[in-house]
């Protein structure tokens, strides 16, 4: 023990060990391997991010140099009805779709966790929709949901229901986009499944002995133990839901048909930049979105201290 203490003390006070020739070579190689990624991060993420903050304060029509206009683009956002409509639609989409997505993904993961035979097959099947391009998936959904000739409405009518005009009725269209977004759940499900499979066997068995009721175990053992995965899926889900774009563009075009019901924030941003060539305005929208999502994420992390439990956590 004394020897160990001595060694520790000696280690703490000794000067940093200089790298030998071989060590320096390793470090150089490591740096070289990391270099492409660092260059990519700098060129394609950090510089564009900083440029976005700058362009947001300019009138920039892509062709020609940007002209400084101060906060004019933010002021224009404030009075733009399309921006407010899209912000409202996007908030609604996020608030509704993220919790539903989490619940369904957790349900699927719980089912998959019980499957012993063909588990690899089922995991692949649930992951497959994620691999389909969003444009193709959206078009398939649009064909399925065609008012009179679509298979979904034909089936619903055969069962005696009065189906909605999924993508034609402004009251139903946003819900249809939410429905569409629930389809590729593979990533969330696999993350939950990873968490479920990391729950120690002895804890699980002890919970079974303490209470025969399955939901007790789910609420008091399973959910707390996979809360880091819930946090991860929640944060990623919120970030993605505020950036919903492809499905909205395919379904509603740049005007958010029908009657702006599917007009999302990113669609307004995209059309400002690439349809109206008002890049300064689009950059201002991007900046506001960035700040908004950042604040929301920080808020979630702040509240996470009270409901996320990490293994070995003393609380």
């Amino acid at each position, binding site marked *: 023990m004394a020897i160990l203490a001595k060694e520790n003390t000696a280690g703490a006070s000794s000067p940093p060990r200089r790298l030998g020739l071989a060590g320096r070579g390793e470090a150089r190689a490591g740096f070289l391997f990391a270099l492409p990624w660092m260059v990519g991060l700098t060129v394609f993420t950090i510089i564009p991010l900083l440029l976005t903050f700058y362009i947001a304060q300019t009138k920039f029509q892509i*062709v020609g140099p940007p002209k400084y206009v101060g906060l004019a683009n933010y002021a224009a956002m404030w009075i733009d009805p399309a921006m407010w409509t899209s912000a409202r639609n996007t908030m609604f989409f996020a608030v509704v779709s993220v919790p539903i997505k989490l619940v369904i993904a957790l349900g699927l993961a719980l089912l998959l966790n019980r499957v012993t035979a063909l588990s690899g097959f089922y995991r692949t099947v649930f992951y497959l929709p994620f691999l389909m391009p969003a444009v193709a998936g959206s078009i398939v959904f649009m064909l399925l949901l065609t008012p009179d000739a679509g298979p979904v409405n034909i089936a619903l009518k055969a069962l005696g229901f009065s189906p909605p005009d999924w993508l034609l009725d402004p009251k139903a269209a946003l819900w249809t986009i939410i429905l569409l977004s629930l389809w590729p759940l593979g990533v969330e499900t696999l993350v939950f499944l990873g968490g479920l499979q990391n729950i120690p066997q002895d804890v699980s068995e002890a919970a079974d002995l303490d209470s025969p009721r399955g939901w007790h175990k789910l609420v008091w053992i399973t959910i707390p133990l996979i809360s880091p995965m819930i946090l991860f899926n929640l944060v990623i889900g919120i970030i993605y839901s505020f950036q919903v774009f492809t499905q909205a563009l395919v379904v509603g075009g740049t005007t958010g048909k029908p009657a702006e019901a599917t007009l999302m924030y990113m669609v307004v941003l995209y059309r400002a930049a690439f349809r109206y060539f008002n890049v300064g305005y689009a950059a201002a929208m991007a900046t506001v979105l960035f700040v908004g999502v950042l604040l929301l994420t920080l808020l979630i992390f702040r509240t996470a201290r009270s409901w996320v439990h990490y293994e070995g956590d003393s609380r």
Partner: protein
Amino acid sequence: MSIMTYATPKALSRRSFLQSSAAAGAALAMPGAAWSQAEGQLLLWLPGGSDLFCKIHTGLLDSFSAKAGLGAASTVCGLGQDTEFTQALIGSITAGNPPDISMLWDSPVSLGAQGAFMPLDEMMKGSQIPIETWPAGLLSSCQFKGATYGLPVTAGVYSMWYNEELFEAKGIPSDRASFPKTWADLRKLSKEFTEWDGDTLKVAGFMPNRVSETMAIWSALNGGMLFDEANLKYVLDSEQNIEMMNFFVDWFEEEYKGDVNLIDRSGNFRDGYADGNTGMGPAFREGRQAGMQSGSWLMGDIYADPVPVFTRWNLAPNPYGPSGTASVSGTWPNWFVIPVGSKNAQAAFDYLSFLAVEGSVEWYQQIPDVPTNSQVKLKAPTGLVENRGQEFADDLSTFLGTQAAIVTPMWNSPVQSFGNDQVARAIEKIYTKAQPVKEALAEAQAASQAELERVLAG
């Protein structure tokens, strides 16, 4: 043994990994180099279109290049429609490596006004295609503050299409001269055909317009306009436009139960093509719609899939509204531009001259986009001659030529896409009864005018 294999000097070392990465990067960069422009070799970009469309343009450019003694020309087809194509084109211009010449399916005014395209006025002077050889209404779609930023080499000409067989079955004269001259007459005629089965529209006559791109034609037919080019001002909520939309809404209420969803659920009554989003076939070709306004490009496709249930159809001039005095036409042109930074600008313009006068004849014969330069001697489209005979095809070509001469100025705003989206929004709000006519048009007017002023502010 396997460890030995891994440890062999032939395994991937860091150095060879980096070398391979560099080689792969160079290989990836090659296609970009293949698309880049070289001096003395014309590069043409096309937004989209069929394989035939690409083949025609590739052939025309190749034959021009051979005749002009230029190097091998390149045509890049199908770069994406609408916004995707514009993105690619702007990207190439700002990167300093644009094509020499590009086709556009959106007005060149917006980007031309911002300096993306070369003004052609100087090159047009003394050329084969001087300014006076173009219809003024059409050329205005390329002009801003006196500069011409592109040429509408061919155009789809909008007129009224009607099913002659459906007319005759009802005992209604089907000759062009008897076609209604006013909106009131068209509305009266439409009722003769429209049939409902409960909430399902079985057959429609003619429909009030719901298409934003053609609203400028309907406005002109009622003596109005959407954009006042001379005064650089939007006039979406003018008296004529309010009257127009009220007329349409009234017609819609009376004949179509005032519910767009009932119509859209019953079929595709919007145009002569199958709806890619819903899979619904075109009601016109299905013999369920007496007529509609459409562009001349449909002539090239109408006998293709889905094959119409009838053979005989015809075209007639657009009828005019209560405040209008005469028929006018409109177009959706195929614009050509020479981007700023083109390394072969003069050769590109020479190709434009060739295309406008000689090349467009072959183009029209295979795909009926109407040549617009006054010097062109039209030859009827081959497909139309095969299906309807030489006489009919010649008659239609002459008719389209007269229609191309009376086009109303459209596509001429420096904020064309923004204005069009505002009109689309207003139309949707009006037909879904989310907003009354006056209010919806006033909102579209305010937004469009504000955007115009922002862009013009410099």
